[in-house]
């Protein structure tokens, strides 16, 4: 009886009470103190991504990420195109990391069709992937600079990444959308003097990014803003299934280049960078350490690379896989990037699922932002190494 009565009475009361009270004077309830903020999709910091944040005063009490503003249906489109014509649109989710997003796709198709990649192509793939990782991380760092109001940190990485873009342009002919990896190797060989130019540029690049420590990572303002904000413990990082720099900043030593080496990573000396703190500072520093490591890998690969040889095993036109499925993953700039390709003896994939690091790190965002101050939101949000276009696919 009482259960039936209460909603009726409350229904009756609510219009009366709102009549009696002047608007704006109903702040006695705790619920009324909580305000809803829409961060994005247009926001000077975050692009193409919305966070619905509830704040109590200065503290975030709830965060509901609303991605999907760049959802372009890549997975559906892939079912209509054959394995080769899928390449250009599959690299669009992260055009500044396009080599790494094509890497698992090419590895998967090579496994499906059953072809081997020439030795020189394997090394060139590693070089292109590592260069592209640096290009991605530099852009990410530049935007992190904007997020924290550090304009110099936008200008420096945005300028230095052009060095490596030049190298990639020499290799593939395009500034950002390389479409350099194809099933069976790479699209074309590098020009004659590439090794010398690459070594010189990478050495200079390494010298430049070491200077970032002084201006950015040792900056007391940055440390004050990012230290101890958004702490993700080791257990939670594993439980939430985060990946890449977010995971390694929380003290889990998991780098797919090292744990499950693909192509020639097992012949190279790869060191994965781990920090134990798990806060925004660690998450912003691990990608920078990765860039230094990438320079090492590129130098090793240049040294060990065969100086001549074929770079592409030609496929038959319209290659077909068997009645099979593969799941291949690589370490991209944002962490593990896996592709699940289901084939049904047709030239088109039956189903292509792209499992990206950004989407997997998204789950950590509401978890970390709860209880954080609103001012710390940008520092936490972008430290998750999140690229919205990739997460939406």
């Amino acid at each position, binding site marked *: 009886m009482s259960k039936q009565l209460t909603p009726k009475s409350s229904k009756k009361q609510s219009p009366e009470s709102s009549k009696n009270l002047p608007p704006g004077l109903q702040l006695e309830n705790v619920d009324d103190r909580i305000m809803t903020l829409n961060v994005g999709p247009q926001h000077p910091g975050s692009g193409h991504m919305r966070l619905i944040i509830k704040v109590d005063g200065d503290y975030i009490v709830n965060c509901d990420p609303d*991605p*999907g503003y760049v*959802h372009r*249906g890549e*997975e*559906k*489109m892939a079912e*209509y195109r054959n394995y080769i014509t899928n390449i250009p649109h599959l690299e669009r989710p992260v055009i500044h990391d396009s080599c790494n997003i094509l890497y698992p796709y090419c590895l998967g198709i090579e496994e*499906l*069709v*059953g*072809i*081997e990649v*020439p030795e020189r192509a394997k090394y060139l793939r590693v070089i292109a992937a590592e260069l592209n990782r640096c290009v991605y991380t530099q852009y990410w760092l530049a935007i992190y600079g904007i997020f924290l109001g550090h304009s110099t940190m936008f200008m420096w990485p945005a300028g230095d990444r052009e060095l490596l873009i030049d190298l990639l342009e020499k290799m593939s*002919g395009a500034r950002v959308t390389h479409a350099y990896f194809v099933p069976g*190797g790479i699209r*074309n*060989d590098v*020009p004659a003097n590439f090794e010398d130019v690459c070594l010189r540029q990478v050495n200079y690049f390494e010298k430049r990014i070491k200077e970032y420590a002084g201006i950015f990572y040792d900056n007391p303002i940055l440390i004050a803003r990012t230290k101890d904000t958004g702490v993700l413990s080791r257990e939670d*990082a*594993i*439980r*939430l*299934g985060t990946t890449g720099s977010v*995971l390694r900043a929380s003290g*889990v030593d*998991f780098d797919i280049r090292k*744990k*499950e080496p693909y192509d020639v990573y097992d012949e190279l000396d790869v060191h994965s960078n781990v920090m134990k703190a798990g806060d925004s500072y660690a998450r912003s520093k691990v990608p920078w350490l990765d860039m230094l490591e990438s320079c090492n890998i590129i130098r090793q690969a240049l040294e060990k690379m065969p100086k001549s*040889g*074929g*770079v*592409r*095993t*030609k*496929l*038959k036109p319209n*290659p*077909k*896989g*068997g009645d*099979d*499925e*593969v*799941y291949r*993953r690589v370490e991209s700039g944002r962490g*593990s990037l*896996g592709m*699940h390709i*289901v084939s049904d003896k047709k030239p088109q994939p*039956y*189903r292509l*699922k792209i*499992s990206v690091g950004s*989407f*997997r790190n*998204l*789950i950590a965002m509401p978890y970390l932002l709860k209880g954080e101050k609103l001012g710390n939101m940008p520092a936490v949000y972008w430290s998750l190494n999140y690229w919205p276009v990739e997460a*939406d*696919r």
Partner: protein
Amino acid sequence: MSTSDNKETAQESTQVEAKPEDKPKENLPAFEKSLTDKIQKKFGDKTEIAYVKSNRTRVNVKKEDVVKAAQFIREMGFDHAESVSGVDYPESKEIEVVYHLGSYSDPTLAKQILALATRATREDDPKPGNDSTKLPSLRDVFYSVEFHERECFEMLGVFFEGHPDNRRLLLPEDWADIPPLRKDFGNKGR
């Protein structure tokens, strides 16, 4: 310059017939075999081992057993989900959901990806959330599948029972068509 390079490489590279390798089934990788043996020992004929390849194994279970199987797999050391992909099979009237599970905490399992697949019935006229296309959610077993399952719900219309918020994630708010990754949904002009 570049065109000559291309010609050279085209001459150098050899034409290889694209054919799947036919390996004898006897020499299955030992470690992966031991993993699937554990699962088969526990569940018997409720599970079906789809394949055992190097570093990749796949187990098919019925939807009644998927939570128990997932709990057992978590006890084996797999602690997170890499991806959850739904595949639509209109011929057999089923939608398959594949959980790709990996391990961070156990270094011996670091290379392994265990695919746990289960199937839900498919209806020709889908009403997402209100028809028989339902599966138990693995969110309580593997917390990391939360957003993946939300994506799977809107893309294929598989309702996950026990999931705290089966809301829309990527598609526009006013999406009224059938779930787009079903095979009977066609892109325009295709």
